[in-house]
């Protein structure tokens, strides 16, 4: 579970993102239980309603589902769904921006591909 | 649950100032008188007004009890009315106890032939005439009256602040001077015609007046 809450994003979104990351990085498996709203609240020192808002966001997206009286669980296929979603975001947020910036600087397609390959070696 | 009962319990936490201290102060005054009587031993005996120490102290409690406990009670979500009634019940109990204690001491004083020193502290002529139940009532009505005299002036302060208190003193001053300007002989004559018990009955309407007015003031008082 990641720490710190940064101020440039509403807290409930950060909570949702934390859970997403935990699912993506397989810290929480599919069909297993996620911490309760109150546990999130206690851990991050936030209002339980805010934590609930983050959790409910994922319920609406079909990432989590509720078992009455037991708690919230990760849906089967949630991880695949999240990867799809994040890929789309990744394209939007980084790839498009990168191409725009590259155009501005006159970087050619070939150069860009080489840069990516070089960067991969670093990572 | 009725909060006035809790207010009584709250007052009981100050038993030392509310219950013990008045008696202690009076007994202190008494022991000084005892020492003096023992030392001088005058033939005509000693008649002292030392018993007034408890009267005055009870009046002072009446004047300070609001400042001490009212803001706390209101802060604990208690209604002003419950504070008022709880305090009243407590004071009825305290002053009845004090009246009984005074009469027990009165009894001892008479039985010991005025402490063997002809010291009249608890047993005073006129004040202690009449049957025992009348004497208890006399003490009770004096103590109770004086408590509410103090309580009343303090409620004026609580409701109207310093200005209110000054106005009250001003009015009292005017009434007092008007009375002294009048011919007082008939008034003294009237007093003389009545027994202490009858006079103590006359205190009742005054006490009621203070109680009603201080109730009305406290109901509109803030913290």
């Amino acid at each position, binding site marked *: 579970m990641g720490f710190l*809450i940064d*101020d*440039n*994003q*509403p*807290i*409930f979104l950060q909570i949702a993102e934390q859970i997403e990351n935990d699912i993506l990085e397989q810290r929480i498996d599919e069909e297993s239980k996620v911490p309760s*709203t*109150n546990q999130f*609240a*206690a851990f*991050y*020192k*936030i*209002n*339980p*309603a*805010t934590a609930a*808002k983050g959790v409910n966001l994922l319920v609406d997206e079909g990432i989590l589902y509720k078992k009455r009286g037991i708690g919230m669980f990760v849906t089967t296929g949630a991880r695949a769904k999240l990867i799809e979603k994040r890929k789309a975001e990744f394209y939007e947020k980084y790839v498009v921006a990168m191409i725009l910036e590259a155009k501005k600087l006159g970087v050619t397609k070939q150069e860009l591909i080489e840069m990516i390959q070089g960067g991969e070696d670093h990572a | *649950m009725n*909060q006035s009962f*809790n207010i009584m*319990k*709250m007052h009981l*936490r*100050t038993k*030392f*100032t509310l219950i013990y201290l008045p008696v202690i102060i009076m007994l202190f005054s008494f022991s000084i008188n005892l020492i003096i009587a023992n030392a001088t031993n005058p033939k005509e005996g000693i008649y002292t007004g030392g018993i007034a120490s408890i009267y005055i102290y009870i009046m002072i409690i009446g004047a300070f009890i609001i400042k*001490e*406990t009212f*803001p*706390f009670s*209101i*802060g*604990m*979500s*208690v*209604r*002003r*009315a*419950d504070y008022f009634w709880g305090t009243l019940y407590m004071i009825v109990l305290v002053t009845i106890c004090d009246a009984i204690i005074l009469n027990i001491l009165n009894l001892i004083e008479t039985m010991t032939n005025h402490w063997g020193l002809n010291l009249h502290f608890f047993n005073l002529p006129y004040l202690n005439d009449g049957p025992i139940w009348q004497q208890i009532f006399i003490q009770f009505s004096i103590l109770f009256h004086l408590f509410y005299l103090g309580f009343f002036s303090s409620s004026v302060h609580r409701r109207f602040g310093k200005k209110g208190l000054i106005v009250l003193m001003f009015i009292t001053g005017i009434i007092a001077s008007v009375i002294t300007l009048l011919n007082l002989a008939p008034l003294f004559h009237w007093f003389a015609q009545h027994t202490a018990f009858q006079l103590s009955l006359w205190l009742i309407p005054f006490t009621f007046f203070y109680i009603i007015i201080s109730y009305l003031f406290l*109901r*509109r008082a*803030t*913290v």
Partner: protein
Amino acid sequence: MHNIVEVKGLTKKYSDVTAVNQVEFQIEKDKIYGLLGKNGAGKTTIMQMLTGQIFPSHGEIKVFGESPIENQVVLNQICFIKESQKYPDVFRVIDVIETAASIFPNWDQEVADQLLEEFRLPLKKRMKKLSRGMFSSVGITIGLASRAPLTIFDEPYLGLDAVARNLFYNYLLEDYSAHPRTVILSTHLIDEVSKLLEHVIVIDQGEVLIDEETDQLHDYGYTLTGTKKQIESLIKEKNIITKSTLGTLTSVTIKGPLSKKEKEQIQELNLDLHTLSLQQLVVSLTSRKDGELK
């Protein structure tokens, strides 16, 4: 949603000042509210009127559907902890706690005992002789142990260090999660509590300036830093809260929200953009001379 407090046209005038002017708001059940604003803005006066401790000059207050004034049913459900609370001179900590225990119908002695121990409060010590911090801890203990359906804390932790304040936040969250109730928290340490608050009401000069869910306040204001020229083109149509310049560098605080397009524009220009924290927002809004935000 169920409102437990409804206030309309609430006004409190003293002989020469209007402390609270035509205030209107609602408070919903089982939420944690922040009542924020500068000292002297009228927060305490409002809370005192909510709890029937002082009387409004005009307007209407309903708490649990009724007027709180001399109302046993309503008062039994309220616990108001205020910084300026007075205690009888001879009362020791234990006297205060036991009296509170007898008065508040939902009192939980276990919570009280835990907090008394955590705060290391000397039970036999007189209230008068406590340090400021310990004095505050007694109030916090009463406020939490009372489990009142409406619990109000007015600057509850003067003199408390960060450790003790954290203890308070933790207990509040824990106990609130287990026993939901309505809490109103008034404090100047806004950053510390902002994550605990579900709803925020900001009072300035006796009036309601903001009445919003905390999440909604997220894009209420921004600071933007860059060269004067870059900034000026961007903020033409924005409501400027404050502005300061240092050489060619300009920093402005503007009222949000910003559209996606505007954010992209800012990113392209490589300007420094920050969301205002709740504390920054309240400070910048309430320190403006005209106090208006329209």
